[in-house]
């Protein structure tokens, strides 16, 4: 810490190389600069307080190493930075706020009070600036670290101030910034207080999962799967070796969101909106998420400092990797590996599709995507309250009251039951199109039937029943070795769902009874198919595994034509389910196109 370079004025040629542009755009940008400075100062606790969305007041306090008294005045000079010494250093950025504009720009746009005290000093230095000019300088008693208070942002720039959005939206933007840093720096304790209310508090324990819990809630955090991958490759024409390490936490496929806001990418400790990397994350989920939905993920990328260029965007949010393909591949591999080893998804994890992060200020970028059923009206901010218009449909009218009721429920309760849906027809002999109280719903017939049967079979097992259809004459079935092993290993669970199978010679078994739901099928084949499916059902265990397998084998298949009565019966049964939104494997059973989404799509509003 003693050999830290002191704050210096950047040589003009270096300053010129730095991309120009607006640094301070909105309160969130101020918070970002100040938080980065605090992190550079080695802080372990960072407290952010804002009032009026940050436009009225922002205060960032840290317990870092502070600024020595003789350098306090220099701190607000343009292109003053203690972090870059030469052009070469630009390419080896190890610290965060390397550009000197930060404090100067803030000082130019607001009133600033600085109190700082290096731990070695006995007293702290104070500085008060007004519209970029030093008004007062002095010393005062202070805790070690730095506290910067920014008031009346853009007071001198009324045009800019007008552009600020509603307090709530600015608060959310600040929250998003703090959340990003809390995720990037799990070892630092962050606290955000907005208008006197605590909005976020991360423990600073060093465990990324705890940081996620502070932001997305404990439930989401617990569901995340650890992801890791490391790659290296020789670079053509260079002695260098391209390296990349990815560590992180990724959500199981059952956890998805309407926007990409819950994909957090951290590169060398810098939180970035790595647009180029988002596809890598999502490719890892290829085929696992419903269309238009996005995963929850925290991706931490580490590459040698000279293999990343953070100087692409004035706000430093975009990075450019020298070996982007390698990074891309590593990210994808990490995600894939995590998902393929995932085995601990709770079978009845509440439907999280509807869980909207409180820090998400992006107003649901994917407003035109089909959200999961029961997603509340697109943004919690600006939507007018729902109005039930009569005459749209009988069901809609009849259920308008209950719908508004549902809308008011907190997101966590949205995994509940679905109303009875009115079937309109079948698409591709695979999906049932149905009218709901709010727009239309597409139901995956296989997934839905699986859910229905799964709950029925489990209820029967719980009740000690064993709906089994004995055979008129027993049937000899020949099994493969893995099938026989599964049968031997899970005999009790298989009996619980209705199988009655006895070993015969070698690979042959005698089937005496089949689960009632499989009655009527070819017995030997049904047993072999059942065991093959059981093998694939790795996520569950015990009777639940046997039940899920039975549900899968007995359910209608994609491609089966269903008549109107069958469609209705299936939807009715689904409405009676406890967890109707997902099949036993966690895949969604339905997609919802709300009336609001329909109206938007057709330009009706």
């Amino acid at each position, binding site marked *: 810490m003693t050999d830290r370079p002191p704050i210096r004025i950047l040589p003009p040629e270096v300053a010129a190389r730095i991309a120009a542009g607006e640094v301070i755009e909105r309160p969130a940008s101020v918070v970002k600069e100040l938080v980065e400075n605090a992190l550079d100062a080695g802080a372990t606790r960072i407290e952010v307080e804002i009032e009026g969305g940050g436009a009225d007041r922002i205060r960032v306090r840290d317990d870092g190493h502070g600024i020595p008294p003789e350098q306090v005045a220099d701190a607000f000079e343009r292109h003053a930075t203690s972090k870059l010494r030469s052009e070469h250093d630009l390419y080896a950025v190890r610290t965060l706020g390397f550009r000197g504009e930060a404090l100067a720009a803030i000082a130019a746009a607001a009133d600033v009070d600085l109190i700082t005290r290096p731990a070695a000093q006995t007293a702290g230095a104070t500085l008060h600036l007004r519209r970029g000019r030093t008004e007062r300088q002095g010393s005062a008693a202070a805790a070690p670290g730095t506290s910067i208070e920014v008031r009346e942002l853009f007071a001198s720039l009324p045009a800019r101030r007008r552009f600020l959005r509603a307090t709530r939206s600015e608060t959310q933007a600040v929250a998003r910034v703090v959340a990003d840093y809390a995720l990037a720096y799990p070892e630092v304790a962050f606290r955000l207080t907005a208008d006197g209310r605590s909005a976020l508090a991360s423990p600073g324990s060093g465990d990324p999962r705890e940081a996620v819990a502070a932001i997305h809630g404990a439930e989401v955090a617990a569901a995340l799967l650890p992801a890791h991958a490391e790659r290296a490759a020789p670079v*053509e024409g260079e002695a260098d070796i391209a390296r990349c390490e990815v560590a992180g936490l990724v959500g199981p496929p059952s956890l998805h969101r309407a926007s990409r806001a819950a994909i957090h990418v951290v590169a060398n400790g810098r939180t970035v909106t790595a647009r180029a990397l988002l596809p890598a994350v999502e490719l890892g989920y290829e085929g696992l998420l419903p269309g238009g939905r996005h995963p929850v993920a925290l991706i931490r990328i580490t590459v040698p400092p000279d293999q990343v260029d953070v100087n692409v965007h004035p706000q430093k949010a975009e990075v450019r990797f020298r070996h982007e393909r390698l990074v891309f591949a590593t990210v994808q591999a990490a995600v894939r590996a995590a998902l393929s080893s995932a085995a601990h998804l709770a079978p009845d994890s509440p439907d999280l599709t509807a869980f909207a992060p409180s820090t998400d200020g992006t107003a649901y970028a994917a407003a035109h995507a089909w959200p999961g059923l029961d997603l509340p009206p697109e943004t919690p901010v600006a939507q007018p309250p729902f109005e039930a218009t009569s005459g749209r449909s009988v069901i809609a009218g009849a259920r308008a009251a209950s719908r508004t009721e549902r809308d008011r429920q907190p997101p966590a309760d949205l995994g509940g039951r679905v109303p009875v849906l009115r079937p309109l027809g079948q698409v591709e*002999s695979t999906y049932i199109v149905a009218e709901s109280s709010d727009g239309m719903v597409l139901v995956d017939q296989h997934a839905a039937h699986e859910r229905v049967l799964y709950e029925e079979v489990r209820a029967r097992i719980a009740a000690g029943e064993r709906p089994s259809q004995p055979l008129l004459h027993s049937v000899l079935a020949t099994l*493969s070795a893995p099938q026989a092993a599964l049968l031997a290993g899970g005999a009790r669970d298989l009996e619980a769902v209705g199988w009655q199978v006895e070993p015969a010679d070698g690979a042959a078994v005698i089937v005496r009874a089949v689960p009632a739901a499989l009655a009527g099928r070819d017995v030997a084949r049904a047993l072999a198919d059942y065991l093959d499916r059981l093998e694939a059902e790795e996520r569950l265990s015990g009777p639940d595994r046997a039940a899920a397998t039975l549900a899968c084998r007995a359910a209608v*298949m994609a*491609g*089966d034509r269903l008549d109107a009565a069958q469609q209705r019966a299936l939807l009715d049964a689904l409405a009676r389910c406890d967890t109707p939104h997902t099949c036993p494997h966690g895949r969604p059973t339905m997609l919802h196109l709300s009336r609001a989404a329909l109206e938007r799509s057709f330009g009706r509003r």
Partner: protein
Amino acid sequence: MTSSTTEANAWGVVGQDAPVEVLRRAIAGGHLAHAYLFAGPPGIGKALLARRLAQTLVAPSAEDPTLPDLTSRAAQQIEGGASADIERIAIGGICDEASHDHSTDRSTRIRICQIRRLERVASLAPFAVSRRVFVIDGADDLQPEAGHALLKTLEEPPGDALLLLLAADIDALLPTIRSRCQEMVLRPLSHARLAEELRAHAALPAGEAFALARLAHGRYGLAMRMHADPSLAVLRQSATEEVRRLARAGRNERFDVADRLGSAWYRERESVLVTVDLWRDWWREVLLATSGLAALPEAVEDAAGLTPADAVRALRAVQTARRHLLGNTSAPLALEVMMLDLPTLSAQRGAPVPSTAGVA
């Protein structure tokens, strides 16, 4: 198709005299087996042999019941693949599952549902002729479960059903399948003999016939296909140029090619396989040349700096890559590994090769 019946052999399956005679004798003696396995590389005559056998059974000639009457309607329907009693089971074929469409679902194997259909149809009496014939074209492409499902039908075929299994790679078959079939290995002709046949049947000049015989590895069907389809010759030409260039190329160029082919694999499996096969053919030529045997002139050039061991290593690398590709390993990875194992020729040696590396 009729002109060849006398000189080549009775069924016109050029080069496969022995299997033809065995089958004719079995028909004459009434001891035809219920299942045959015709083994041999692509273009050797497996499908033609199966077709002629079926035609002989369905439409025997009036004079000799061991010969097909190829002028009959029934024989011609079989020739055109439009016969009701002969069913061909191959990748992408039909099955009884209403929701399956293997012609569009990118099946890479013969699926169990197709074998179940076979089982069902086989249990029915033939419709118009005396026996139902099933040709499993690509028995080495049977899904393992499909192979198991086939065992039962092979063991006790219902009625008079005749099963003909065609396979290029008999090692890929379950031993239990092989043991239930009468196996017939179709072998390539000597290059000289094939060249002769080509001159007789395709009226090719001697030099061209010999080159074609060589390229076709002594397989009559393949030679005729190459003769009829000039695009195959072009593909062969470019693949050969590429393999020669690769032998002189650095790691980066090799990896680029591996990458390109590897990503093409998922879209155009067939053409990638053909390319890899052509590379294998090339290294086989080089191996011949390193051992001092007759080979294509370019192969002799390339062999100059190589030992037979080098060529064997290259050949093995290509073979391994091919196996990995078919075994669903990551295609780029399989090809990259192969690239690492190919010997490196210095760019200066040998004749200039067209395109990049050819700086003599």
